[in-house]
């Protein structure tokens, strides 16, 4: 304690004189960061190539190498679980799954910084342009179905269902809905606490496009986060909490915490449906049920045919189980057939066939 004042004062006097130099040093470091960012954009290939450990050989018995997976925070658990099972089957492989959000992930994927990209929505036109600018050729698999849950606190006993129009009025840009009574006059005159995903996520894009009508157009005074469980936690903690997010996250906590899904109007038959397995797989929970995708970089497949191809096939083989294990719903059997056909197409494109892969089709 007694030593502190003297040492502090001695450094600060010495420092003051050279503060500018220090600042200059920090500036150089910042510049290095910017330059590095540019490098990443143009020469990202080097980074990936280095991780491949030169595994390009077809038909070798032991798979090895690293697969970089970027993408959706929602789909990441499925891809990570598929990756973990893949690693277990082929111990020399590593599937590195970074769940930064679909939009943020496509920025990486379309700059050749990742081999696999999980997505909770289709690729957008802008992202297609970005990919073609960087010569990224890709294909996608359908790996599961997700419900987008509209959630409220369990102690909230007034909201029994909600129409699509009401949802739109709550969330649209410059919405004047501040209290529950603004939605329906008979609901209490208390302020709503709104929680939802930020614009980096595919869930956000999906919700804004299908509920509000235009992608990205949303009110700007809600609490936005990239972590779905923050939304769920906030709504569980507050009677007036209201929000939406991936159903998998709700399923994880709804038994322990006071949070539940709100039945939403269906655009299929006008009834109100909860996001249950039955309703989602029957197509009644619409438009808030959506397919989940995994995009694959064809250049990576060409470079490391056996590794990437095997992972694609491995993922397809088990996708229904992986999706269910992680609290999602399985894509229909037809999707698996379609995925197999796609993998055949990709392999043909790079001059290989399914027999060259270590993983066999099931």
């Amino acid at each position, binding site marked *: 304690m007694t030593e502190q004042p003297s040492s502090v004062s001695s450094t600060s006097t010495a420092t003051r004189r050279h503060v500018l130099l*220090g600042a200059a*040093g920090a500036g150089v470091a910042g510049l290095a960061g910017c330059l590095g960012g540019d*490098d990443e954009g143009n020469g990202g290939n080097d*980074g990936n190539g280095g991780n491949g450990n030169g595994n390009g050989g077809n038909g070798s018995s032991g798979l090895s190498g690293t697969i970089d997976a970027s993408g959706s925070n929602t789909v990441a*658990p499925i891809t990570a679980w598929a990756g973990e099972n893949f690693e277990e089957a082929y111990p020399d492989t*590593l599937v590195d799954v970074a769940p930064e959000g679909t939009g943020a992930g496509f920025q990486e994927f379309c700059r050749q910084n990742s081999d696999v990209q999980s997505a909770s929505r289709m690729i957008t036109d802008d992202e297609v342009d970005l990919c073609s600018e960087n010569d990224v050729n890709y294909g996608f698999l359908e790996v599961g179905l997700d419900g987008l849950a509209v959630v409220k606190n369990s102690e909230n006993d007034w909201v029994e269902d909600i129409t699509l129009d009401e949802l739109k009025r709550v969330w649209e840009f410059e919405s004047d809905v501040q209290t529950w009574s603004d939605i329906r006059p008979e609901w209490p005159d208390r302020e709503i606490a709104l929680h939802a995903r930020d614009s980096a996520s595919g869930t956000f894009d999906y919700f804004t496009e299908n509920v509000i009508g235009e992608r990205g157009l949303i009110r700007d005074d809600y609490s936005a986060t990239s972590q779905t469980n923050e939304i769920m936690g906030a709504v569980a903690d507050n009677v007036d909490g209201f929000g939406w997010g991936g159903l998998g996250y709700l399923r994880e906590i709804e038994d322990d915490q006071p949070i539940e899904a709100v039945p939403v109007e269906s655009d299929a038959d006008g009834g109100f449906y909860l996001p249950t397995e039955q309703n989602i797989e029957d197509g009644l929970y619409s438009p808030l049920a959506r397919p989940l995708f995994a995009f694959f970089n064809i250049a990576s497949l060409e470079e490391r045919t056996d590794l990437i191809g095997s992972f694609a096939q491995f993922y397809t083989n088990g996708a229904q189980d992986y999706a269910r294990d992680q609290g999602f719903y399985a894509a229909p059997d037809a999707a698996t057939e379609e995925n197999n056909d796609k993998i055949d197409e990709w392999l043909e494109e790079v001059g290989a066939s399914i027999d060259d892969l270590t993983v066999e089709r099931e």
Partner: protein
Amino acid sequence: MSTETETGVEDGNTLFSDIDLSWEHRKNELFRWLLIAASLFGVVMLALLLFDVVTDFYTGLTEFNISLYEFFTQDGSQEETRAGFKGAVIASIMLMIMTAVLAFFVGVGSAIYLEEYAPDSRITRLIEANLANLAGVPSIVYGLLALAAVVNGIGIGPILIAGAVALGLLVMPIIIVSTQEALRAVPDSVRNGSYATGATKWQTIRRVVLPAAIPGIMTGTILALARAIGETAPLIMVGALFVNRTPSGPTDRFSAMPTQIYNWAAQPSEHFIHLAAVGIVVLLSFLFVMNGVAIYIRHRYETEV
């Protein structure tokens, strides 16, 4: 306190009788309590933090049946019951060893030069001032530097070496400053005695100064490493976040203890949140042990110098 002023009046000392000092005394007392409250604030916050962590740790072990044995023998996993901390602990230990190797020799070498050889010139003062500035640079900046220069620049990817470079840069100024303090604590008379026997500068440093200063240097190094082991931001920048497996060498990708905790805490299930709490207890234990060793070394050797 108020009795003093009253006795003053009773004694007939009328000179200051119109001045009421009781408010001043009350202010004195008030200020004392404010300062006590200020100094207790940190202690109370630490106690609250530890209490929170320990209760989560306890419910993790009891309600969620997290077995400590499995916690230390399993790698991370997407499946909560299969998730453990082994990979993260081993990655952190490897990271510490590499960080120590990278930072120790350069740091101590630079401190010896600055203390023993460097003339008291403008350049020396400039270097020292910059070291002081470097020690105050936010850790995420070192992470950015490692990301730009090592991960993307050289293109080696988010592997252990890249993490060690970021942490090494982070702790090097701390090691240099503490080594300088340790060298300065060696009395000049000892050096002069050595010179008087005809020893060269290097012989004096190697045989006389360093042996006397080594406990201080070790203490500073261990404390610096204890800071590095808990650093999360630079590792996140480097990109070492979502790997569940135990690294087998310095070129493997990794997720260290703090990043694994960060990762778990962002998971939706309560089980993962409590795994994070158990992880925090392990990380804190590492910190306490490292700090304990540092304190032990200081007390053990302090008297001999």
